[in-house]
């Protein structure tokens, strides 16, 4: 397991290459990369606040659940905080397992849990002002799948 909470940008391709080289015995690697979305075309930046003392431990606890449930060979979570611009990678999840179903399942679980159980808060900055992104009830519903 590697959990990296950082403000600096990262290169998802380089991270995937390094992760894949280190997972001897695995037959499948699944990755997800989340980008700063600008669906209305007016976003100048996304500011991500977090709770430094809690973020790492909370993410590691979520990843430990995934590793045990899907018998993962290895896992990676990178999540940024601070000011990001549209198109930049915000976060990345990678899971390695013997077979693809386990790697996909674990990655899906990790994304659902990181969304509503990792202490990050997003604020959108546009030309018209700034607003906190509200959590969706569908995010909370998604946790019940597991």
């Amino acid at each position, binding site marked *: 397991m590697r959990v990296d909470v950082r403000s600096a940008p990262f290169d998802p391709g380089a991270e995937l290459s390094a992760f894949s080289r280190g997972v001897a015995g695995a037959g499948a690697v699944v990755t997800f990369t989340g980008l700063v979305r600008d669906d209305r075309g007016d976003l100048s930046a996304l500011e991500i*606040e977090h709770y430094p003392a*809690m973020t790492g431990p909370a993410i590691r606890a979520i990843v430990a659940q995934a590793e045990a449930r899907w018998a993962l060979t290895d896992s990676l979570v990178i999540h940024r905080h601070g000011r990001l611009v549209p198109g930049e990678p915000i976060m990345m999840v990678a899971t390695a397992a013997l077979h693809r179903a386990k790697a996909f399942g674990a990655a899906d679980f990790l994304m659902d849990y990181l969304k509503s159980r*990792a202490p990050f808060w997003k*604020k959108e900055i546009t030309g018209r002002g700034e607003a*906190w992104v509200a959590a969706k009830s569908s995010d909370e519903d998604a946790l019940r799948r597991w």
Partner: protein
Amino acid sequence: MKIDVLYFASVRERIGLPREVVETGASTVADLVGELVAREARYEAAFADVAALRVAVDQQLSDFTAPLEGVRELAFFPPMTGG
């Protein structure tokens, strides 16, 4: 007892502070929120709808009925939006 109380995101903005040390005799999180709300309007505004807020007790997600005995750090924030 003294407890470090942290505020994040919209709660931090409404209260106007990222953290403070609170001297309290409250026995639960909800009691402490009651003490804060009685202090000033900005706390009343921040805690107007506690059902829409989350609380972490010593960095673990918890709830407003949690006891405060032995607790060192509390954090209040809106639902998280990671990922």
